[in-house]
């Protein structure tokens, strides 16, 4: 019916323009968004500094200088952010805090994203009894008190930073699953899904090819809210003594220590708080840019 070879010859030059994926397109659009690019740069700098923290300062994060307790920023001794109440360098401790906070934020959110999206999309797409069963399980998980869950894990496995990831991930995916399920329910009734069925596309291909990209908008918005929320929850756990253990630290720990002495040593509050605020700000801008980039029509 169509002469393939002739067409291929005629169109060979054009066929070399390989189809770019949705993600490449989205990335190109994201890179045109100045606020998002600036945020990515700031976040990148913070992340790189956190990774290379030991080489950026002459001081180890846990060394106590008995003669320099709670000192304001002091360039002569390379205490750029001053020292804390135990005479440890605040700059290097803020960077170590960034390590923990970023890692918790990204890993726990990543876990919740992966489980939540696939779980929610599957439940919503198949509907009926499968949906009922899967979502009742989510309801049961929801009804477990979070603190009780964390304390239980700590008692059983001892205090361990990985447990924080597991505990946070295990809780955060529930909301994600509910959001994705709700979106899936409305999208699976759309005509293009029916058209995909009529085109003989298999169920799982419909889920990941047609449904998941259509729910990513709300998912990414929720994700940008989850990262800061997870970072804050981690600081809350650390504050209660259930999170990271001294001498290791996180931004939440540093802020709570700084808040106690904010009148006599404001730098102990200001530097970690500004770092945390800047990070959360960046995540929000990136999320906003991503939403615009992923939704080619709503601009």
């Amino acid at each position: 019916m169509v002469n393939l070879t002739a067409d291929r010859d005629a169109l060979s030059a054009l066929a070399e323009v390989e189809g770019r994926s949705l993600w490449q397109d989205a990335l190109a659009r994201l890179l045109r968004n100045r606020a998002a690019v600036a945020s990515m740069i700031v976040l990148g700098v913070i992340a790189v500094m956190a990774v290379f923290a030991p080489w950026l300062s002459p001081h180890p994060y846990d060394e106590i200088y008995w003669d320099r307790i709670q000192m304001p920023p002091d360039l002569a001794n390379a205490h750029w952010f001053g020292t804390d109440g135990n005479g440890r360098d605040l700059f290097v401790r803020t960077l170590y805090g960034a390590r923990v906070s970023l890692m918790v934020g990204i890993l726990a959110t990543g876990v919740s994203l992966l489980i939540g999206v696939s779980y929610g999309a599957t439940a919503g797409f198949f509907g009926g009894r499968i949906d009922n069963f899967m979502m009742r399980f989510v309801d049961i998980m929801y009804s477990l008190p979070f603190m009780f869950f964390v304390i239980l894990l700590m008692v059983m496995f001892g205090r361990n930073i990985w447990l924080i990831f597991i505990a946070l991930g295990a809780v955060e995916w529930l909301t994600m699953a509910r959001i994705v399920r709700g979106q899936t329910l409305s999208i699976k009734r759309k005509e293009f899904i029916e058209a995909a069925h009529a085109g003989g596309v298999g169920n799982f291909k419909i889920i990941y090819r047609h449904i998941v990209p259509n729910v990513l908008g709300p998912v990414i918005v929720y994700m940008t809210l989850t990262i800061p929320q997870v970072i804050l929850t981690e600081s809350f756990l650390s504050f209660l003594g259930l999170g990271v253990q001294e001498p290791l630290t996180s931004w939440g720990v540093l802020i709570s220590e700084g808040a106690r002495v904010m009148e006599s040593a404001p730098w102990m509050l200001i530097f970690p708080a500004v770092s945390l605020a800047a990070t959360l700000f960046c995540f929000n801008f990136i999320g906003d840019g991503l939403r615009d980039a992923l939704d080619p029509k709503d601009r």
Partner: protein
Amino acid sequence: MAPVLDIEGLQVRFATPEGEVSAISDVSLRIGAGESIGVVGESGSGKTQLFLAVMGLLARNGRAEGRVRFRGQDILNRPARALNAIRGNRISMIFQDPMTSLNPYLKISRQMTEVLVEHKAMTEADARTRSMALLDKVGIPEPASRFDMYPHEFSGGMRQRAMIAMALLCGPDLLIADEPTTALDVTIQAQILELMADLRRDINAAVVMITHDLGVVAGLCDRVVVMYAGRIVETGGVEDIFHRPQHPYTQGLLRSMPRLDEAKAETLASIPGQPPNLQSLPPGCAFRERCAHAFERCADERPALHDIAAGRAKACHLEAAP
């Protein structure tokens, strides 16, 4: 010649909280290779559900019974996995609203090549070549530059052309078009119909045109099937139906359609009353309450579809055309 699609005694029922609704009752229909059939009827007559049942796309509460054979192979109530080898490949469907039938997040190119990679195991490059050739064939100007666009960058008419191109990708034996022009404005409608008429000559597919617009049928179809309340009430060649309609319902449909070929402007007639409630169909003819010619027998006995001439059948107790 063996029929492409052979529907025998198809029943479709929907379980609703108010009771069972019988959307299709005892429909038998044969579609030969390359034949073009128009299925007409007003909203709720079951014309769309009939072909959704054939495709295995009924809503969850729908049940289909009877026999549907596609090229001799039973396809009714087969699992989705088995149907997926046929759907989009041997039978394809064009939907009513091109605005919502394309995935807004995927480029036209991706949505087209997906079908070919899935069904014909083509490489991405081959699939692109073939898809682009088809876009060209359905009259999309500069297909190469439009190929990698998103659906929202297309106009309504272009999207419907792209939908048609997608439906033709695998060279189907049967093409089901569910009101393909309803959502388009009149000038675009005419273009799309012209395109479909052109394509009919090139492709060897049997075409089913589901529509409430008899004008669409006139230019495109060989045979017309008129449906009312889930049953076929009249079938025949397109000329016959237009010039010598036998069933009062068909006559009513024709009178309610504006015509340009008539000298003096007549007032358009409407069919009085409402289509019956499919939940509790009374015995007898479903059309009798709206029919000007109904008599006692119509209330007691449902008229069966019977042949009245070669290739003509009607379900009406009246002996001659009223």
